[in-house]
């Protein structure tokens, strides 16, 4: 920023905001300002109104989850009274145990864990490989192929669902986990995300140095790219995991209640199988819990990852 912008700043904003925020962006978050324009971001201090509005927004975001817990900890008669309960009751553990059995959540959780785990691992691996190629390797048709990758983001999965179902029947994968896993082994968003990251974070000189030392491409990928890309790979893993865990449409079609993933098992709760509202909420809570725990632990990284991947979208 040039010096002539200083009088402007004093004319408009309170004088201390600008230098302070600049100090904040410069030395603090080295890795964090990866895609950030230098000197970017307007950072007025938030006033009380902003805090109140944000507080309301946070309340709207979190209240349904809190209330799920409240409803899951009371019994059915209490939850169907007015005014509705706002504080947790004593039956949480009983209800969780019963919902676990009624909706066969044990099996569903294991299935979801396998599905989301395999999909996330393969997505991260293939996205990093392809992202590296698109970011740092020169080859014919690179731009066209990259456009294709981006174009595939626009194709909704529902359009191919009928033939896909027939394919799975033919392969004998109906009601089996491979039917859910195989179609989502790769992700265009993931490829794009890793390409964006590696374009900026991986210096060309490092790749060239590897070549001069006689390393072949896979070796460069293994010894140079992977260590550098560890952080975004973790982020991509978590985001993919959330998506795969929550994916509903295709698993609902191709799996049945004998072998469901969590979202599929949860429909059983609403479909009149269990009529006890507290139990329904207990099931919903159980199905969400693993991801909520992940959010409490890694929330900051997931937020950062979504923001990083977004800027150039």
């Amino acid at each position, binding site marked *: *920023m040039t010096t002539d912008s200083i009088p*402007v*700043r004093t*004319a*408009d904003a309170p004088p201390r905001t600008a230098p302070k925020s600049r100090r*904040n962006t410069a030395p603090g978050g080295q890795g964090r300002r990866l895609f950030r*324009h230098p*000197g*970017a*971001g*307007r*950072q007025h201090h*938030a006033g009380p109104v*902003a805090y109140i*509005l*944000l507080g309301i*927004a946070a309340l709207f*975001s979190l209240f*349904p989850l809190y209330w799920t817990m409240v409803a899951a900890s009371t019994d059915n008669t209490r939850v*169907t009274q007015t005014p*509705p309960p706002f504080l947790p009751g004593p039956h949480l553990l009983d209800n969780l145990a019963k919902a676990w059995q009624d909706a066969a959540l044990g099996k569903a959780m294991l299935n979801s864990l396998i599905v989301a785990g395999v999909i996330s691992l393969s997505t991260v691996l293939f996205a990093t490989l392809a992202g590296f*190629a698109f970011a740092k390797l020169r*080859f014919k048709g*690179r731009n066209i192929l990259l456009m*294709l*990758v981006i174009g595939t983001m626009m194709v*909704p999965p529902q*359009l*191919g*669902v*009928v*033939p896909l179902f027939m394919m799975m029947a033919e392969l004998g994968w109906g009601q089996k986990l491979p039917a859910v896993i*195989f*179609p989502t*082994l*790769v992700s265009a968003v993931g*490829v794009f995300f890793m390409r964006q990251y590696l374009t900026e974070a991986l210096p060309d000189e490092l790749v060239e140095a590897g070549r001069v030392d006689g390393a*072949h*491409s*896979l070796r460069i990928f293994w010894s140079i790219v992977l260590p550098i890309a560890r952080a975004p790979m973790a982020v991509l893993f978590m985001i993919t995991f*959330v998506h795969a865990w*929550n994916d*509903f449409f295709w698993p609902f079609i191709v799996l049945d209640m004998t072998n469901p993933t*969590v*979202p599929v098992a949860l*429909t059983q709760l*609403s*479909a009149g199988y269990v009529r006890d509202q507290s139990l329904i*909420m207990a099931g919903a809570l159980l*199905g*969400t819990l693993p*991801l909520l725990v*992940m*959010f409490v632990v890694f*929330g*900051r990284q997931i*937020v950062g990852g*979504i923001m990083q991947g977004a*800027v150039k*979208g």
Partner: protein
Amino acid sequence: MAISTSTPPDGAPGHTLPAGDGTGEDGLRRRTLLHRLDVRGAPYAFVAPFFVVFAAFSFYPLVYTSWISLHRVELSTLNVMEWVGFDNYTALWDDDRFWNALINTITIGVLSTVPQLMMALGLAHLLNYQLRGSTFFRVAALTPYATSVGAAALVFTMLFERDFGMINWMLSLVGVDTIDWENNKWAAQTAISTIVIWRWTGYNALLYLAAMQAIPRDRYEAAAIDGASRWQQFLKVTVPGIRSTIVFTIVLSTIGATQLFGEPLIFGQGPNGITGGADNQYQTLGLLLYEEGWKNYQMGRAATVAWAMFLLLIAVFVVQQVVRRVLARRA
């Protein structure tokens, strides 16, 4: 990927094998050949997994859908395909449920997308202030995104319950009569849109926030010299500055809206879910596709609905492009 690993030499056994440092002339030639193969081939090997999986499980089914839509195929006998030409299409055109589902998809799409993106914009603007506890607010905003459709729809179905639901109870406190969220068409569509809005607003807000942080500060300073108020700065600097991100989220949300499935299905609680309520009052195209294929066992007709969804998407994009051009010309 075999290209990039060293393959055993198939040269004559009499030749000396190239040492690790490749000093011999043969070794050198072989190494440069391998090297060239590696440099040329490895990129394709690296991007191949993506394209192979995509071609097999996304592109091929997409194309095959159109072929199936010209046939009569029953769920119980998937390998028996009877050619019927465009019968499925004319039948769909004459089907009231199709037009109903199409209109519902559009109205629920608008009801959920427009408020969602407006609120996300406001939320991003607030998050862009210098804040205490900004991480908390960001994570809180994103938490609904981690909730599965199933869980979210179950909770909101209860909150919107007619007799004991919390929302009707709160409305009664301010003197609003009981609303039948399930059976009243617009109320049901509003309730379903609320679930969508709740899950996706924070996610979009973070996308906007990221874009806002990339706007150079001098633009605000320039606007301030010109005497622009904060609101004017928001309209004239912030919104144009993140325009490409806004377009991106509109595209994403539109795709999401045309596919809407889980929320209305679960909101309908059981048998009414697939038909989108007792009077199809909130049946979307996604639900109609499922009903045709997996309840009425007509896969050919389901494929036709998929095609209709595809055409709807294309129509939306064309309209979007036209609107963008017109707006850009006016600006």
